[in-house]
């Protein structure tokens, strides 16, 4: 499974990278870690005529934590997130989700930008992006613009990115103290893409009720989606066992549940409910014995 032939360029700066991408419309691809693109090329599912290696472009691999939130440069690797001394405290949901990505060797090369641009419906980073209302900074010929995560992912392996654009960074809004959160994923083996996953958080209002819940489903549809029905049940209520069960029961409502060789749709829906319940229980800090 040798790669098809291609030209290779390794620009020193962003502008040159964009020019190179634009020079071969539809035939050039950006190469970051290569952990998603190269397997596709090995199967000849992708055969770009030009690979633009981004690794020498400066200032794309920073993790910046500020009052306005967390900014991850496109070339930040999973291992960088894992090893960052203060990121887990600044954004625990991000770090927990990323801890499930792939395997040790992949984590040394795979990047935030690469995962976002690849847009596998079961990938954790796009799921976090959608769950957290992230903003993705895109650079193109006309300069930079920002795309909301919910508008960025169009379908399986399909995004709003034009062929001559690059992701520069992703910004996650600030994470307040006291926020409740959980990440719950079900995969066949460690490191596999999730058959279903739930990334959620909510804050508590003055009365202790759930305020502005964000619940995103990963790996159940053609892209990560917010679970609006579950969010509606939760919003404004206290996170009790009954409310959690009710929220979990409607987990799949309004979502187009995908079917594939690993999971039929009805199983996936049921799985999503169970994961939602377990995630909410964990977020709420309840002790809820399961009936099996």
């Amino acid at each position: 499974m040798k790669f098809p032939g291609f030209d290779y360029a390794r620009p020193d700066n962003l502008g040159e990278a964009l020019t190179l991408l634009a020079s071969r419309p539809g035939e050039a691809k950006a190469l970051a870690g290569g952990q998603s693109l190269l397997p596709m090329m090995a199967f000849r599912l992708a055969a770009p005529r030009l690979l633009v290696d981004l690794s020498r472009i400066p200032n794309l691999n920073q993790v910046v934590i500020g009052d306005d939130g967390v900014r991850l440069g496109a070339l930040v690797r999973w291992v960088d997130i894992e090893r960052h001394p203060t990121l887990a405290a600044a954004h625990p949901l991000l770090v927990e989700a990323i801890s499930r990505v792939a395997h040790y060797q992949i984590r040394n090369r795979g990047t935030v930008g690469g995962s976002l641009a690849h847009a596998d419906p079961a990938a954790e980073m796009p799921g976090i992006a959608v769950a957290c209302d992230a903003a993705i900074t895109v650079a193109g010929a006309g300069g930079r613009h920002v795309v909301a995560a919910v508008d960025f992912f169009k379908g399986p392996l399909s995004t709003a990115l034009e062929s001559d654009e690059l992701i520069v960074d992703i910004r996650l809004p600030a994470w307040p103290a006291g926020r409740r959160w959980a990440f719950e994923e079900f995969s066949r083996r460690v490191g596999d893409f999730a058959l279903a996953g739930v990334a959620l958080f909510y804050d508590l209002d003055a009365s202790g009720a759930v305020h502005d819940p964000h619940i995103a489903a990963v790996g159940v549809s053609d892209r990560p989606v917010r679970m609006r029905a579950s969010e509606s049940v939760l919003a404004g209520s206290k996170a009790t066992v009954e409310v959690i069960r009710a929220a979990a029961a409607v987990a799949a409502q309004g979502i187009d549940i995908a079917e594939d060789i690993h999971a039929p749709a009805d199983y996936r829906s049921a799985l999503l409910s169970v994961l939602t319940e377990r995630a909410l229980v964990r977020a709420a800090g309840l002790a809820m014995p399961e009936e099996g």
Partner: protein
Amino acid sequence: MSALSKRGPTPNTLVGQPVERTEDLRFLTGKGTFADDYEPAGALHAVILRSSVAHGRIRRIDAKAALRIPGVHAVITSADVGHIIPVIPLRLAPLEGLDKYLQPVIAHDKVRYAGEPVAVVVADSRALAEDALEHIELDIDVLDPVADWHVAEADRTILFERNGTNLAVRYTVGFGEVDDAFTSAEYVRRESFRAHRHTAAPMETRAVIAEWDAGSGRLIVNAATKVTFFNRRTLARMMDLPESAIDLIEIDVGGGFGVRGEFYPEDFLIPFVARKLGRPIKWIEDRREHLLAANHSREIDCELEIACKRDGTILALRGKIFGDMGAYIRTNGGVVPAKAAQFLHGPYRIPAIKIDVAAFMTSKTPVGTYRAPGRFEANFFRERLLDIAARDLQIDPVTFRLRNLITEAELPYSIGRLVPYETETAFDTGDYHAAFDRCLDEFDWKSKISMQGRLVDGRYQGLAATCFVESGGAGPRENVRFVLESDGAVTIYVGSSALGQGIETAFAQIAADALGLPFATFRILHGSTTFVREGFGTYHSRALVMGGSAVLDGAKHFAAAVRVAGAAYLKCEFEDAIFAEGHVTAKNGSAISLARIGSLAASAGKPLQVEGTFANTKRTFSYGAHAAHVAVDARTGYVQVLDYLAVEDVGRAVNPAIVHGQAIGAAVQGLGGVFFDHLIYDADAQLLNASFADYLLPLATDFPNVRGVTLELRPSPSNPLGAKGAGEGGIVSVAATIGNAVAAALTSFGVEPNELPLTPPRIWRLVEEARRRKAVAAR
């Protein structure tokens, strides 16, 4: 046993020790020579163009565009092979009629499975050859697929028109008054079971590297293994060459498990192309290709009935085996369904048995042997039914088994002739009850059983224990050749193949003990047709039993030859020469070292060498029991294996660490076969998951709690080592034990996991259906 007891004053005791492996030195330093590490000078690279259609008629192959690519040398099709396309013969299990379904080495008029070789592309590099593939126009008129044996049975679409049917063979075996037993039994139960298609997936893919020397008319093929002599015979016939003109060379092999080493289409195509083009040709299979084109296995459906007395005594078994053979019968013939039928019997007292076997052709990858072919399946079918019967009769499943488990007093125990191409089979030696007891004891069954069916932390716990008997040590013969080198080292050439099971170490242990020489004296060279005049290879756990026993015989002859040579030099009578501690010593005390004997012989141009052999038609029978403790999350279908124990009596463990490694490795492969490995086809007979991303193998995190206990209770009576083949016992009962443990865990739901694999969606669905049934009943 005589050779082993003839020890010198300081006897070696390497046999029975976990000696560190010789092989490891090169494997650990990256100095092994696996197929892709070997490249003859001037080699060109081949890639196989395979049909993407499951069933069709080839209309046209147009390679003009491919041939225009610089660096592409040739595109070989059936037209180049000639009017008569060689057909791959049967090696084993020649059930009547199977020879009408053999595979041509290259597709010519029809393709019958997606993945069937249609052409060979040759280029300067593998990458270029793959580029060329995309420029070949392959025109195939699509015919209806035959996606499973039900479709095959209907015979509406016939894969081999001249045969008129997709039913390759049907036969019935058995003994005793089966139908009477069922009519009069106090209890009968019938169930349907399914084992799914999966395969061995060794870490190294297949490879063939062929070099043709036109001047001498000789062919050298590297990366052969498993059954090199059979393959050479086959290749010679196909290429119209004398066997002596062909060398099949075995180098390092990255695992086999039954799948690697059989004669495949590429084993003809690559040498053929090498001869045709007059250039060495190197073909390294890629992983996608491997999953699609190397033998598949295990796809068997079974309807099984049991008749018992109320106290659980088994009166009879009656059943049907339906084998999905894929598109062609491969070298292993009918082994998979035939063995599945035979091993339904198991280590139990079955007074009457009748099994009907039907093997169907489908438009999928052909089927061959994968570790314990037919037994992984048969044990699942039978042991599941035993637990179901035990539950119906309200008898504890352990008690049920003990009631029926063959006792030592009954051995040898004949199970008649349950395989048409074999003679009567009898289980040889063993204490099946002792092994079962040991398993339960080691597993702490008595205290763990209190967890049976209990809901703990939201998961249901289940336990099961099963018994098995397993054959090994297939005959008929194995040969070795001992050569004394000029420095006193001893090279032992063996006909056995090495696929990772450590024969370079184990055989040296045997020879060292037999001759009273240091372990480091010996170098074991294996598998290649250049090494011995006739070899039989490695399959059905035969290497140690047959090859090891041949080494013992060779050692005997070697010791005698050394004494003769030493006596001649020392000018004494043979009777007065003693060979011990590496020297031949005469009565008067004069001595000559082995090294000196070797050096002298080499100088005289006549190195000292002897042959050894061991012949045996009786298989060996290992046996034992497995136990499992699982926790089932009924809401997601996830099963965690809390503890898995495999206990096996192997008669004699030459290297206990190697045997233990086989047991654990086989058990984990089996667990993968229960939960993960699955070759998934759609209704168009297209393989949907030909990649490691979607064909799932067990990882280090999946089954951390697997234990193995090796017993040496009863030596095998049929070889001087007393060894029973030990390569497959670890896998045979895994589906059986896990299936029963999951059923036990979910007793409260009343689900019967009778279909493999036990994936989360399958288990979830069984539970969901049970929940719905309960809800309906409650109304």
